[in-house]
């Protein structure tokens, strides 16, 4: 076997790897994750009922809840959210690898109601038709050739605005949100909207997707945004017919995809394409600011930016839970599930499973690398994974720590994180002088 390395091109996100194997090994040891599960006992036990779980507690801090649930059983019936919650790594991984038993096309889906029927709630072969329509826009080659330069320009602008606003301004709302919003606006090709529109659309549509409390005001606001997005999409599809570029909407303008599918997929992308990179950027910086030794290591070794990014996605998965529905009676992790059971696949819990990750509650960029489930798995693996890695780990993080070498949390002001379906920093005042 030829082992001559091909050094003509490197990954645009992680840079060239060290050529010395000892150096590489010293930088990061790698141990494969263990996915094996014991054969479940037939017919399976009845799911324990977690009637002590409240939505309020989940929003504030879900991790102690997940720990208690995982210690008891990998699957619970949770009355407060009206579904089974799956909290072990093995059981979540089993669901991701078996789309025949665990359908993404759930009934009475909050996401379908908020955003329309997007590819995220379709099973194959229907899912694949929509996904293929997204083409090359989000792939590493296009990012390297086209988007990275745009992300760098946007980063300079919005980091500049944070600096101009002065110490005490909010890292999330004065920088991470407008930066990722503007990146998303350009990747999607919304020439007829602002990054503020994208932020508003994203938040209100996502609030609908996570509206487990069934708040009518949340539904009304989501519906208004949905109408606005439809109008903007229709206008841009007409524009791009004669004026193609690299954007998603431009690519979709020439595809034989029904308009309803385009509209739904675009809304799903507005949701996932903004909140997730915004939240990972803020969470990763927050975690590093709280762990000075790790921050020093990242500053000394730029290749660790991508390691810190992945550890952050493991530690606080920005999409903490997604739904599935069983297509038949089955047994998952020893727990019996009837056909039609509505599940919550809790990535935020799976990624802290002590059976897979040592000392899982700690943020530790030096832990042995293992496959986390933060980007999902199987055919619904996040299509924006490489876009997120590029704009956060490759562009934003190095720039933030270079231009603000004394960046720190403002001790005189509260920092908060919140959420469980989606989780991230909601308030993060910073100082840098």
């Amino acid at each position: 076997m030829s082992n001559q390395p091909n050094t003509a091109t490197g990954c645009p996100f992680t840079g060239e790897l060290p050529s010395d194997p000892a150096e590489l090994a010293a930088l990061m040891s790698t141990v494969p994750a263990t996915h094996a599960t014991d054969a479940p006992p037939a017919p399976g036990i009845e799911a324990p009922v977690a009637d002590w779980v409240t939505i309020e507690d989940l929003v504030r801090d879900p991790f102690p809840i997940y720990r208690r649930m995982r210690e008891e059983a990998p699957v619970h019936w949770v009355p407060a959210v009206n579904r089974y919650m799956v909290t072990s790594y093995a059981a979540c991984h089993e669901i991701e690898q078996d789309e025949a038993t665990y359908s993404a096309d759930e009934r009475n889906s909050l996401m379908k109601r908020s955003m329309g029927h997007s590819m995220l709630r379709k099973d194959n072969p229907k899912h694949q038709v929509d996904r293929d329509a997204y083409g090359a826009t989000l792939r590493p080659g296009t990012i390297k050739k086209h988007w990275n330069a745009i992300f760098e320009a946007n980063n300079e602008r919005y980091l500049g605005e944070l600096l101009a606003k002065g110490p005490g301004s909010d890292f999330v709302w004065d920088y991470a949100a407008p930066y990722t919003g503007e990146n998303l606006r350009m990747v999607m090709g919304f020439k007829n909207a602002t990054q503020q529109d994208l932020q508003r659309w994203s938040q209100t549509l996502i609030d609908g997707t996570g509206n487990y409390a069934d708040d009518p005001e949340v539904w009304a606001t989501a519906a208004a945004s949905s109408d606005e997005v439809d109008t903007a999409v229709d206008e841009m599809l007409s524009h791009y017919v004669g004026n193609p570029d690299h954007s998603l909407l431009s690519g979709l303008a020439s595809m034989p995809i029904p308009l309803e599918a385009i509209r739904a997929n675009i809304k799903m992308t507005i949701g996932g394409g903004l909140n997730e990179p915004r939240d990972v950027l803020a969470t990763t910086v927050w975690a590093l600011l709280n762990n000075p030794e790790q921050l020093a290591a990242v500053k000394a070794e730029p290749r660790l930016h991508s390691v810190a990014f992945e550890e952050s996605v493991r530690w606080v998965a920005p999409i903490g839970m997604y739904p599935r529905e069983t297509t038949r009676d089955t047994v998952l992790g020893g727990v019996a599930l009837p056909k039609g059971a509505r599940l919550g696949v809790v990535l935020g819990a799976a990624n802290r499973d002590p059976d897979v990750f040592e000392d899982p509650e700690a943020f530790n960029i030096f832990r042995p690398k293992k496959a986390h489930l933060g980007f999902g798995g199987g055919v619904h693996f996040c299509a924006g994974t490489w876009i997120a890695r590029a704009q956060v780990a490759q562009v934003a993080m190095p720039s933030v720590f270079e231009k603000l070498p004394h960046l720190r949390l403002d001790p005189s002001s509260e920092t908060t994180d919140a959420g469980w379906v989606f989780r991230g920093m909601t308030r993060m005042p910073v100082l840098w002088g």
Partner: protein
Amino acid sequence: MPTVTFVQSTGESIEVAVAEGTSLMRAAVTNGIDGIVGECGGQAMCATCHVFVRPEYAGALPPVSDDEDEMLDCTTSERTEASRLGCQVKVSAELPSIVVDVPADQV
């Protein structure tokens, strides 16, 4: 049935029999082969099913597509001339057996 032999960096060798048309990634994931993750389920989007194909089998393989090529630039273990994404290589009547080496690092 076609067979796929996965050789780990430790030297351990595991042969599995799979149906025609099965990708190397699916063969590995279904049979619990360590070191093949297959995060994206075959979309050529994650580069976690990287394998090194032994040269005597390379001639029977379909060429590397543009999508596969750009993902092979993003593998954790360094890319070589023998590198392929397991999800893009399927066993068939034309390729009834294949031996591949599993990289030491996959994520």
